[in-house]
Structures are given as C-alpha cells and as structure tokens.
C-alpha cells in the first residue's frame, strides 16, 4: 500500500483503479439500460 502512495506511478495506478471501478459501477447501475 505504501508503494501506491509514496511512488508517483503507484499513486497513478491506485487512482486509475478507483476511477475505473467507480465508472464501472456507474455504467452497470445507470447506463447499461440506456445503451440497449
């Protein structure tokens, strides 16, 4: 966990995973029906 905070690339990966996770949840709960 320390590497994901104190290393800039690690922090980048950490935030990207969180962002894509939030987006995936948003897509599944709100957008999937819109795209059918």
């Amino acid at each position, binding site marked *: 966990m320390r590497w994901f905070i104190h290393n800039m690339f690690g922090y980048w990966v950490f935030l*990207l995973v969180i962002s894509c996770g939030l*987006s995936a949840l948003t897509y599944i709960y709100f957008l999937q029906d*819109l795209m059918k």
Partner: protein
Amino acid sequence: MFEFTVAGHVIPLFLLVLTGFTVGVVGGFIGVGGGYMVTPALIVFGFPGYMASGTDACHIAGKAVISSIRHRQLGNIDWTIALAMVGGTMLGVELGVRLLVYTKNIGLSGVVLLAASVAVMLGLFIYTQVETQRSHRKLEADRKAGKEIGREVKVSTIPLYFQRIPIMPIIKARKARLVISMWVIVIVGVLTGVLAGFLGVGGGFIRVPALVYVVGTTSHLAVGTDLVEIVVSSGYGALRQSMEGNVDFMAVFFMIIGAMLGAQFGSIATSFVRGPAIRYILSYSLILATVGAMMRLVYVLTGGTQEWLAFVAVVFTLGEMVFLCLFICSLVWFAVRHKHGRAVPEWVPPLVVTT
C-alpha cells in the same frame, strides 16, 4: 423527475451535472476544453453523435468563459499573446477543416486519420512527460539543496531559439515577461489550429504545450491564455452547431451547473501547484485519451462483436474524467496538508506551493 429526454433517450440528470463538474475541474486546471472526453461520454449516455458534438461545443464555450474569468483574476492571462494568437488560430482551424475534407475526398480512410491523431497525442505525451520528469527532479534537487524555488521550472531550451527570431514586429508580452516576434505567435496559432481543425478537436491539448515549449510562457499563463482562445473558437463552434440544430440546451444548462463549480475549483487549484504539476496532468490526459481512442478503434475494427471491448472502452472513457479530477483534487489536498506541516507522499513537496 430527475431524468429527462434527449433525442428519444432518457438521461439521468446527475450524470450531466457530474460530467460538467469533472471536466470543468480538468479544463480549468490544464486549459483544455475537454471535448475529447465529453463527446464520447455523451454518446455513452445515449446522445446521438451529432447532438453530443453540438451540445459539447456549447458547454465548452460556457465553461471556458467561467474559467477565463477566474484565471484573469489570478493573473494567468497575457492578452498580448492571446490577441496575437486568436486570428492565427481561427485561420488554422478553417485550413484544418478544409484539409480534412480534401483527404476524405481523395479516399483517405478514417483509420489513417485516427492513427494521425493517436500519433500526435502520443508524441506530445512523450515529450511533455520526459521534460516534466526532468523538471521534477531538478525541483527536488534544488529543494534538498535549500535553494529558493519559483512557481515554474522548465528544462526545455526550445523557446530560446524561437524568442531569438528577429522578424518584425517584435512584441513585448508583459505578463509573460518575454519579447518575441509576433509572427512566431501567429504561426503557432495557425499550426495548432490546423491540427485542431484536422483532428476535429478544440486544440487546447496542442496549444498549451505549444505556448510552454515554443513561445516560452509559464504553464499557468499557458493555461489561462489558452482558455481565452477556447472561448473564441468554441463560441464560434457553438453558434454554428446551434444553427444546425445540434444542441440540446437543457443538457447544456445542467452541464454548466456542474461546470460553474468545477471550472472555478480547477482554475483556483492552479494557484496551489507549480508548473510541472500542471504539465503532469496534461500529459496524463493525453495518454489516457490516446488509450481510450485506441480501445474504441479496436472495437470498431473487430466489427463490434466483442461486447467486453465495448464495456472496457466505456468504463475507460468515464474513468479517465474521474481519474484526472481526483488527481487534481488530491494535489490541492496534499498542498494544504504540506502547508500545515502534515505528512504527504514523498513526490508531492516539489510540485506544490506552500506560500
């Protein structure tokens, strides 16, 4: 109650407000319009392509006005450079659009054009990332040596060559504190405008590096000055798109509600960081946009049969906006913590301002 219909599709309102907010933060911070993120996102939300493009152009114009006002208050606009560049930019965009029409008429495929945009974004990403990492290391070395460090550090020497060009008229850009031939600025505007018109984008992600690495302004000034350009170019684009009936003004209204807060925050956030932090976020936005474009291209090339590819492309398109917004918010948070003497990640202190 919290949804409304656009072109036959029901759209959740909060997504429009959230999109306006996140792209407002990013646009106000790195000086881009964000069309390359918002248009694909609106298509994901169910907007038809022509409506997504037109609605986005209107939203960008409004958001750029908000950001420009805030950047003017922060002293981040050089009006001499902005006015010298505007004419060149408009001419360049017109030339770029005509070049695009010409290449389509001679049968150049869309894949080739997409490859060109990927190549440009990738090239800008590599140069910006390498130069910013070297600047970051220089900042860290100066900080450890106890030297006083300014808000901007650049290691690129390219601007010095362009500033020495003696073609009259030579103008003094007072805010940017540089003396340069007006023709350099006009030609930068034309060339970035051609790229923007050809690739079908606003051009902020091309003009900001051009202002920093060719004209030689600071990153903060490049962001503010470029937003003035975006007000002009996207304002014209919004007018044309609304005349064609490609704009849903209710959607624009809700996106601007989000942008009102986001653009203000993104603009103010620039005062918490040094130049390399802005260039880092710009380079991340370039590589993420490139990866997102390549995912969509692969999905199209496989004939739209791989549903998992569509899902990944959609998640990445939305995730890119959230990522950049979260990174900027965390930089501000770390800057405030560092100012109060609290622990921050080791890479943060050279990038943030504590005074």
